[in-house]
């Protein structure tokens, strides 16, 4: 180490003497002085590679500062090239040179020699801590508790307890209700055909798969389900994940890497947010469903690209949108956006009433996830009985395409019935089976809003209508939606029940809010 250090300093010091170069250099040196593992990380954090390339100051400094030295060198080379009598002339010149010049050059030479042989210069006084001091510091340090205490009346601490199946009729906290809260849109949760298929699978394969897809965790049922999903979605290939949340959260970082750009809707759900975070890409957020805003961002990016075409050539760009936004109940204006989609990711935990998720698209796109989708590679595969249930659910959907029109009609009905409740506003498309009820006027504090809405939910529950508030992690959400009650429509709800639900919500809301 020591043998190559001095020349480095020789360059360093004149640079730091020249001013601006010093600022770029000092942080990494500070880290070095402290030793340990800090230096690697500190350096890139301070001076990211592309910026480092732009800094030209040091190069100037290195050329400019030792001007005197360079002149001297020039003179010496001239002397070397000439014949021996020139040496005499040189000695003569030395005599003739003014004394101050000689002294100055002499000092410069000595200075260079000193720099070459001196030890590491200290950027700051450092004094190593003694062992005893270290022990005292260790003794002194008190960590924060692992988790902060949770107050007993935290709104999310005490869960509703559902006894028995969460199907059309649901028993919540001992009270029998009609279910307007579970995403069981098509009522397949307690469908006897689905149950029978799952049961047959259970009797053949048992419950668990005891391995990831790569290591004997691929069952014939998984392959069937992937085929069926690909056909159902009219794509080349599909890939299944064992957990809905992990599907999109794994798919995004499989493609989008550090340095890539993702344009994403403001209202995107939490799984998308986490996937984006895991990808470490640059994230550009556009206003919810605002295509003009997206266009503005894309144009901005185009200008950016023209400035740096080399970077633009390797930067992938993605647009991430949701079909029906879970957080708002609105639909994405897909025709305006694009005529062709590279990847669709979906969840089997709602309409299909099973567990897990899938992605589908062209083989060129999807196949990549089989080695790069973290939640696919590193997790146990989906229990075969859940895959079998999903297949049977697909069968039912394909056999009764009319089921979707029925659902749509019911959505329209309750939407209409819920309009005009004083104090509550309906958010979401009229054909969306999941939509939100917002407070028309916020009380000003989120906590109070949540309490008011909870009161409505509780009273509805007492009157046999099971509803739930949409839950969020307030501090984690990128754009936290306002508090709301989520209403879910399913095909099993009769017209009578829909009317009753709307009437109940109306009455309760009036009682609570007015």
């Amino acid at each position, binding site marked *: 180490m020591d043998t190559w250090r001095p020349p480095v300093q020789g360059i360093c010091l004149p640079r730091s003497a020249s001013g601006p170069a010093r600022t770029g250099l000092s942080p990494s040196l500070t*880290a070095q002085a*402290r030793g340990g593992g*800090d230096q690697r*990380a500190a350096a890139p*954090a301070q001076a990211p590679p592309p910026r480092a390339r732009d800094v030209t100051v040091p190069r100037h400094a290195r050329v400019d500062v030792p001007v005197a030295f360079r002149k001297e060198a020039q003179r010496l080379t001239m002397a070397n090239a000439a014949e021996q009598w020139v040496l005499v002339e040189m000695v003569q010149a030395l005599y003739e040179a003014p004394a101050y010049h000689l002294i100055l050059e002499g000092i410069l030479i000595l200075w260079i020699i000193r720099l070459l042989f001196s030890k590491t210069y200290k950027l700051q006084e450092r004094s190593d801590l003694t062992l005893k001091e*270290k022990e005292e*510091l260790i003794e002194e340090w008190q*960590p*924060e508790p*692992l988790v902060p205490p949770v107050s007993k009346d935290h709104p*999310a*601490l005490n*869960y*509703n*307890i559902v*006894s028995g*199946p*969460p199907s059309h009729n649901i028993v919540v906290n001992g009270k029998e209700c009609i*279910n307007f*809260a*579970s995403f*069981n849109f098509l009522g397949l*949760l*307690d469908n006897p055909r*689905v*149950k029978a298929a*799952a*049961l047959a699978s*259970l009797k*053949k*394969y*048992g*419950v*668990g798969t*005891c391995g990831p897809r790569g*290591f*004997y965790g*691929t069952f*014939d049922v998984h*392959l069937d389900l992937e085929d069926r999903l690909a056909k159902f979605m009219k794509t080349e290939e599909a890939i299944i994940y*064992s957990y809905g*949340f992990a599907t999109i959260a794994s798919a995004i970082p499989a493609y989008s890497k550090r340095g890539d750009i993702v344009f994403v809707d403001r209202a995107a759900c939490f799984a998308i947010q986490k996937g984006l975070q895991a990808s*470490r890409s640059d994230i550009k957020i556009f206003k919810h469903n605002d295509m003009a805003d997206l266009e503005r961002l894309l144009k901005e990016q185009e200008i950016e690209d023209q400035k740096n075409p080399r970077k633009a050539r390797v930067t*992938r760009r993605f647009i991430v949108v949701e079909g029906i936004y879970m957080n708002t109940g609105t639909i994405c204006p897909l025709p305006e956006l694009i005529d*062709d989609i590279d990847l669709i990711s979906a969840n089997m*935990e709602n309409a299909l*009433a*099973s*567990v897990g998720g899938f992605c589908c698209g062209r083989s*060129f796109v999807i196949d*990549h996830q089989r080695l790069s989708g*973290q939640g696919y590679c*590193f*997790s*146990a595969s*989906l*229990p075969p009985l859940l895959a079998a249930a999903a297949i049977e659910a697909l069968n039912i959907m394909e056999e009764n395409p009319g089921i979707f029109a029925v659902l749509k009609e019911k959505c329209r009905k309750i939407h209409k019935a819920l309009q005009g409740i004083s104090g509550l506003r309906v958010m979401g498309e009229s054909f969306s089976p999941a939509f939100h009820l917002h407070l028309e006027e916020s009380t000003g504090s989120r906590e109070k809003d949540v309490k008011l809405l909870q009161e409505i939910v509780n009273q509805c529950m007492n009157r046999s209508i099971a509803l739930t508030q949409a*839950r969020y*992690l307030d501090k*984690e959400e990128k754009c936290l939606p306002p508090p709301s009650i989520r209403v879910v429509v399913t095909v099993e709800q009769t017209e009578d029940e829909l009317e009753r639900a709307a009437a109940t919500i109306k009455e309760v809301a009036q009682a609570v809010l007015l």
Partner: protein
Amino acid sequence: MRPGPGGCCCRRPVRANGCVANGEVRNGYVRSSAAVAAAAAAAGQIHHVTQNGGLYKRPFNEAFEETPMLVAVLTYVGYGVLTLFGYLRDFLRHWRIEKCHHATEREEQKDFVSLYQDFENFYTRNLYMRIRDNWNRPICSVPGAKVDIMERQSHDYNWSFKYTGNIIKGVINMGSYNYLGFARNTGSCQEAAAKVLEEYGVGVCSTRQEIGNLDKHEELEKLVARFLGVEAAMTYGMGFATNSMNIPALVGKGCLILSDELNHASLVLGARLSGATIRIFKHNNMQSLEKLLKDAIVYGQPRTRRPWKKILILVEGIYSMEGSIVRLPEVIALKKKYKAYLYLDEAHSIGALGPTGRGVVEYFGLDPEDVDVMMGTFTKSFGASGGYIGGKKELIDYLRTHSHSAVYATSLSPPVVEQIITSMKCIMGQDGTSLGKECVQQLAENTRYFRRRLKEMGFIIYGNEDSPVVPLMLYMPAKIGAFGREMLKRNIGVVVVGFPATPIIESRARFCLSAAHTKEILDTALKEIDEVGDLLQLKYSRHRLVPLLDRPFDETTYEESED
């Protein structure tokens, strides 16, 4: 007592020729706490007795034989040849001399920035593709001791597979994580699950915080807490997500995570998502961990110099690629000394270790109270799916309100819950039989027997002698494929792994033992492994074991990342 920098006296291997430890005669280097004491006594080196001896209530025999130099050189040469041919093939494909089998981007999108970096796929295209048939083998039966595999063929060098329709019946399954043999389609677990399935259906269609908290979930969580010996527990729908969605709830900016270098991808992802600073310590190396802890507290956060808010140590019970068991007594001593918190991932060790299957904490005879976050999965020993976190009531209350999984992810499917409940009760002996206990014992016996026999045959085996995960070293890339295929030819299904799951020269085969394996099955497997070992010249061992602590430790190799 000072836990010392990694059992300071034992850093150098103790030469213990033919010493007797646990009734087994060993040659070469041995490292274990109790065994070292015996060895030292035998060799007359009393001063070598480790200070940590007191921490361990049982012998800890874990050793790794160094890669023989010739093998390492040949392995690198192997990769070199493969890479050269890879470039040649790529060149031929580029000029359309060789037919291109892989899917390509559509013409309309050819002018987009390419979706994948070309080099990213070089390895997949030219190395992985040659031996792709060893992975993703589809099965069509219970993943029990024996399994039925669907036969498939490739006519284009593994670019695509065709199913012949034949089924390879009764393949001995050495690959599934069915440690206790609960992957079954008959018996009490299946009957109970079937009953719940008929009553509840398979889905839940909501999250725990909204309306997906079933009475079954509550029942399971109470049982898990009792099983682990902790105050409370919470369960989640996926093991991977249990890590990746809960670590961010526990730590954040200004906190430090100390993570073992071989931690599972889910722990790494969770740590990254949390936003905390991550520092990596050498695998199971207590010196390295202690140095990081000490430096972290003494020097505080980089740049701001503020003290860390809290320090969380992430370790696994059994490391699934290494077969090693965490040095938990030492980790706990360090954590107490430096006031750090401990997150223990028992994905592979729960059920598989300890006299009554309570995992690595019981294995070492420790108190579950000393582990702050007990995490594990139901996928392996319980033959189900999902994961749990156990600990103090405050911790679980906090997770109930702040876990990403509780708010945004669908809860566990009811029949899966029932499978966990029944199998867990069976292990606890609450079903009125001693079946569970016998399974745990059978697994321990199988593990010792299988490991001993493989060592005797002269294979290089990694890991702890009590770990049911048994890696057998193959080293050379060509042997990965050859071993997998030869074993399947002999009706034995094994898992082979290479780069990037392992270091580039340490490709290996991995056997997972199960209580369902009978002695007869194991003997058949061992006989075939012996044969294939001779055929492929896999018996590299020269019986010179290097304890884990003495694997090269370079102080300058810490990594750090901040997001």
